[in-house]
């Protein structure tokens, strides 16, 4: 189904929490363009779309549970998330892993971000560039 025709899984307030949490997971999202942020959230939504309804609800509950954290100073948020990432209860760790994974997917899955981190593969000329010993990307 075309992404434009899909009904979003995440509501506006859930998207806002996700964006705020993303600044803790990937700090550079704080200064990313609106276009990049929208692409990140859309990609997360796109991943949730085909998942079973229970998984969607679990993710929304996680956002709800972590939403209050985004009111804290950035340093505190990071400390708390680190604590939860290694929390003694496995289910909590799994939830944070899922959140991180989706944010990484939404951010590092973008072509513009991949270019920025010097990931510039070549479909046709990988071996040519290898033999020429030409490093990709910026100096």
């Amino acid at each position, binding site marked *: 189904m075309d992404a434009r025709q899909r009904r979003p899984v995440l509501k506006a307030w859930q998207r806002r929490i996700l964006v705020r949490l993303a600044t803790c997971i*990937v700090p550079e999202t704080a200064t990313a363009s609106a276009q990049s942020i929208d692409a990140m959230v859309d990609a997360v939504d796109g991943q949730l779309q085909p998942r079973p309804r229970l998984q969607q609800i679990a993710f929304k509950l996680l956002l709800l549970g972590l939403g209050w954290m985004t009111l804290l100073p950035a340093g505190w948020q990071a400390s708390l998330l680190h604590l939860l990432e290694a929390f003694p209860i496995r289910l909590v*760790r*799994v939830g944070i892993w899922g959140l991180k994974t989706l944010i990484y997917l939404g951010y*590092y*899955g973008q072509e513009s971000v991949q270019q920025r981190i010097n990931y510039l593969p070549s*479909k*046709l000329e*990988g*071996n*040519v560039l290898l033999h020429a010993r030409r490093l990709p990307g910026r100096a």
Partner: protein
Amino acid sequence: MDTEFDILIIGSGAGGGTVASALSPLCADGARIAVLEWGPHFKDEEFTGGELEMAQKLFFESGAITNRDQTLTVACARGYGGSTLAYTGTSIEVPQRSVDHWNVPGLTIADLVPRMRHYKAQNNVHELSDEDINENNQLFAAGCRALGYSVKKFPVNIKGCKGSGMCNMGCPNGAKQGTNRVQLPAAEAAGVQVITNCRVHRILPHEVEAEVAPSPYGHPSAWPAGRYRLHAKVIVVAAGTMHSSALMAHSRLPVSLPALGRYFTCHPALTLIAQHDHPFLNYYGFPKTYYCDDFEEQDDYILETCMYFPFTTAKSLAGFGAEHSALMADFRRLQMILVLVSDQAEEGNRITPDADGNPVLHYTLSERTLDALVDSQRIAAKIFFAGGAARVHAPAADRFLIDKADSDQVDQLIDRRHLKLGKISIASAHPMGGCRIGTDPKNSVTNDRGKVHGLDWLYVADGSLFPGSSGVNPYVTIMALADRVAEGIRDRWRAGELR
């Protein structure tokens, strides 16, 4: 269209594609053979190399089917060629010790070797020349040699490789010689029908319920969308390890198969990432050239080179925030090693179907597997440092990065205490078992020729046949086992049993 067949093959990957090609000569003798493939037949231009796009197109659940406790993800592809679309093409023969350990009467290494070599020759398996080996691989070899470990080149099944490095997203140049390039086209040329976009919902005696659904990708299916009841004298299930067990259990077959879905193994794996001080040529060229199996026999793991893509890399790192971003900031400085554990076949690790027939994986990482995952990280870290890395990320370390200055403390810094399930990304691309070969129906599902116990019309021919872990990348072994299955069916056809 015809709904009566002699042989129906469900799935077109390393198992189904092999059975189709091995049985295709029977078409000249009047046999009606069809392959039913759930996924589409992708057009060449649809292999774009886009990480997220290809993950969604090629894989079930974007490559991350999770076990029930969500501590492991399993990648299973679908499409014309099955998981051979998405593997790296590394073609290692199963070692004798694995086959001996399986201990199945009639299944010997002497029988498997000629079959594996036949398909290796058919798929142009060879070792890369040194000039085509990039620095990500060279650094691994240098590190292993500096430490006195043996390092071997992977035999790979490529032809005309352009070094895109995108093997796991489907080769954009058609260079990988999977069943989509070799066995299936040959089978079709000989008269086998391949029906894509066709999901089998249920298997009944000599019959399957299937559905063709339109796909946004690929060539149109040979059949119009709709539900079908297809009849056959013999049905071969080769839907991939996860889906074969789930489909058979969902079908409620007319025999008791207590071992169905059980004894699942999957080579749980971790990706380790090191950072060098300077950029180097890491992702141009073929990504997976070397491996070290010094630790397979005693310690249950092997180490392989790998080079993944940005999102996959980011999620492989345990941690987040500024240190994670700093490591990801320049992809050209990253070196990667994959560690894979030969997990034990345990009855409780099993696949069951959900209400729709999709696989549900019940898998617990054993203490032995977890110990091997920790030990393998220590060895990988030493190889990184011996190869010149400045910093190493190991998911079971007490810190995000181990600095070279602390490289002599790797054994202490990487510890089982820090390996927290659910925090780290343990992944599998080698699901095996569930319909294991054996003689006793209490602990196996098929005989040594893949025929399901108690049903002379039903066979299995994919990775689910493995009685235990192969210990090495399994696809050549799957082809050899599928070839044995095809041979048994061919013998019955020639004896007149199936006409």
